[in-house]
């Protein structure tokens, strides 16, 4: 559980170890564990099918991993300042955090938004906010993750309009809207519309961006949040793959060929817990994904077979108690990420069990990754753990476990069905409960929580990011100003056109772009979609 379940004898010696994914770890691994090993079949060189060792031949010798800390809060101006601060400290890609009203398609002055504007991310109401947030950012050099899902289509249209407005080439900018609604429904909670139209919106963004913004990664399929919600590492990959396949199958139905879009799909995967289980997980995932694309989808272009990912985090491993310990944990997670061949790395900051990070905490996360990059030899060779008896045996076993979990989902009718009926949610909740029980019964050790505890309360010693309620006031004023000064007739017209397109099930993106450019608000555009699509009803799981 978590790290693993240990059975010890009276002398305290470990007798049995079972990883959370259900694999037993032996005391020693040797050549007999790799009796059936075939280098070309099982590994290939990095950059060669099945890409177990890495998707590129040179990996970090050629290019370091991108460092992309999640950031954003308050007004777009405050967020723009934080972006510039992080870039100045070595961050090489952006990952924008939006507040909950924005994520849920609500304007900052909506009654439901009260108390939440700018709290967990940046408030966005109109294109004006994007223009401010990305001012003076070299968008052709720095790619932007947009951690947005239910209204990802709207944010992508805003990003396009912003980049165009600043004179950047659409061929060169790179947005990565997270845009993974199924994981919202099982592990993150920021959904709006029902499953089917949500998948259609994702299809629209995939189809549109392939033509208009080819460097966009229109979807970042997230195992991360499902693992954070409690599932096992093997389930994390299984569910992520089943989600990805649901989106792929939908786009294929539109008549696109797999090689027209599959290479732009990316993944966001979690790291905490057992080092070797994690590394094996990622290597198995890369191999499995490649096989899936080649054998099931008959992809011809090797790029379609690459599992490109952000491997990082993982908030689930960090603790409220003795928060400085989280700096150490995050360093280990960064190491795992590098050993696993990630493309992008990001870490939760040490204060994140409390609230969103202070600038100092964010810099420590950056320094953690920079020290790993510059001082520890992680750039020197590709897949340094390749060939280890343990790691190769574990990679094989993780592949089996992942495949087992995938089969379970397929047997009950696929991921969309599993989500609509609550199967995944029930399983994730059950695993979370088992883990919490194990923690409370001290079957799993967590330093500072149930072992090596401190008696004094340390909460007071952590300097925390303070929510600034005047930011909400400023944002609402700004919103009112936009509503006053824009061409409201044009807004009404574009929203009508948008509704028509949505009803006819045509690609909404060009029409969203028009609404966005007319300074329609997030709330207004979302209301159109709600009218047409309805709202997701959470299945009851108890």
């Amino acid at each position: 559980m978590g790290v693993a379940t240990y059975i010890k004898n009276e002398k305290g010696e470990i007798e049995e170890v079972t990883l959370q994914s259900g694999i037993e770890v032996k005391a020693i691994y040797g050549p007999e564990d790799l009796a059936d090993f075939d280098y070309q079949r099982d590994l290939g060189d990095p950059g060669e099918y099945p890409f177990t060792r890495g998707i590129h031949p040179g990996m970090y010798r050629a290019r370091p991993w991108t460092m992309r800390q999640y950031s954003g809060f308050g007004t777009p101006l405050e967020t723009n300042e934080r972006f510039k601060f992080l870039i100045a400290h070595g961050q090489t890609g952006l990952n924008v955090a939006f507040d909950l009203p924005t994520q849920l398609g609500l304007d900052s002055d909506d009654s439901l938004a009260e108390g939440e504007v700018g709290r967990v991310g940046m408030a966005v109401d109109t294109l004006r906010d994007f223009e401010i947030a990305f001012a003076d950012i070299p968008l052709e050099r720095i790619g932007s993750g947009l951690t947005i899902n239910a209204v990802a289509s709207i944010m992508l249209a805003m990003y396009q309009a912003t980049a165009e407005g600043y004179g950047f080439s659409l061929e060169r900018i790179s947005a990565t809207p997270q845009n993974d609604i199924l994981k919202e429904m099982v592990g993150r909670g920021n959904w709006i519309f029902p499953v089917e139209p949500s998948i259609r919106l994702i299809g629209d963004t995939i189809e549109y961006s392939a033509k208009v913004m080819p460097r966009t990664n229109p979807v970042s399929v997230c195992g991360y949040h499902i693992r954070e919600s409690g599932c096992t590492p093997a389930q994390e990959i299984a569910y992520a793959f089943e989600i990805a396949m649901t989106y792929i199958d939908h786009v294929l139905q539109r008549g696109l060929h797999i090689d027209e879009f599959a290479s732009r799909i990316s993944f966001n995967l979690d790291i905490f817990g057992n080092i070797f289980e994690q590394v094996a997980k990622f290597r198995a995932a890369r191999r499995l994904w490649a096989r899936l694309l080649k054998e099931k989808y008959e992809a011809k272009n090797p790029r379609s077979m690459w599992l490109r990912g952000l491997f990082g985090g993982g908030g689930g491993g960090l603790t409220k108690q003795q928060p400085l310990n989280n700096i150490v944990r995050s360093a280990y997670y960064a190491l795992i990420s590098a050993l696993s061949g990630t493309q992008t790395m990001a870490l939760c900051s040490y204060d994140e069990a409390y609230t969103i990070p202070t600038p100092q905490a964010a810099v420590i996360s950056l320094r953690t990754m920079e020290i790993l990059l510059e001082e520890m030899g992680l750039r020197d060779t590709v897949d340094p753990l390749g060939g280890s008896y343990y790691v190769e045996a574990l990679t094989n076993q993780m592949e089996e476990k992942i495949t087992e979990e995938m089969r379970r989902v397929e047997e009950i009718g696929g991921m969309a069905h599993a989500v609509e009926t609550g199967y995944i949610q029930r399983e994730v909740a059950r695993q979370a409960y088992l883990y919490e029980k194990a923690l409370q019964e001290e079957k799993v050790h967590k330093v500072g929580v149930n072992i090596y505890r401190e008696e004094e309360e340390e909460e007071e010693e952590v300097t925390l990011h303070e929510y600034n309620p005047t930011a909400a006031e400023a944002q609402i004023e700004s919103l009112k100003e936009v509503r006053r000064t824009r061409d409201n007739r044009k807004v009404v017209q574009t929203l009508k056109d948008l509704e028509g397109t949505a009803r006819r099930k045509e690609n909404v993106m060009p029409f969203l772009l028009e609404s966005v450019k007319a300074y329609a608000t997030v709330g207004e555009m979302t209301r159109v979609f709600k009218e047409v699509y309805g709202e997701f009803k959470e299945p009851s799981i108890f």
Partner: protein
Amino acid sequence: MKDRRIRVLVAKPGLDGHDRGAKVVAQALRDAGMEVIYTGLHQTIDQIISAAIQENVDVIGLSILSGAHIPLCEKLMSRLKDENLSDILVVVGGVIPKKDVRKLKDMGIKGIFPGGTPFAESIRFMREKVH
């Protein structure tokens, strides 16, 4: 006779989508013999009050991780007073900084059980305070 099962409404008010803790607590309370109703996400305070009335609960347990606990709790406690339901035991869990505990208690929230609270503690508290 007081051997009716304790009825608990586990509620997710506001926009916060983190429900791992709420679902874990719901399972623990159920295993402890309580009747648990889980509201699901994105509940308004009014929806929570309606559910509490409809389900005739003894306890309302709010789970809040976004930091918006003060405004949300203020609203709930005020509405409970309006509806004459101040005898319902209200407890809060999630991400609750120590510095806010006093303020919440002053509002009438009897139990604060942030993430990591042992099940036994919250269960014992409810058994003592209900009925």
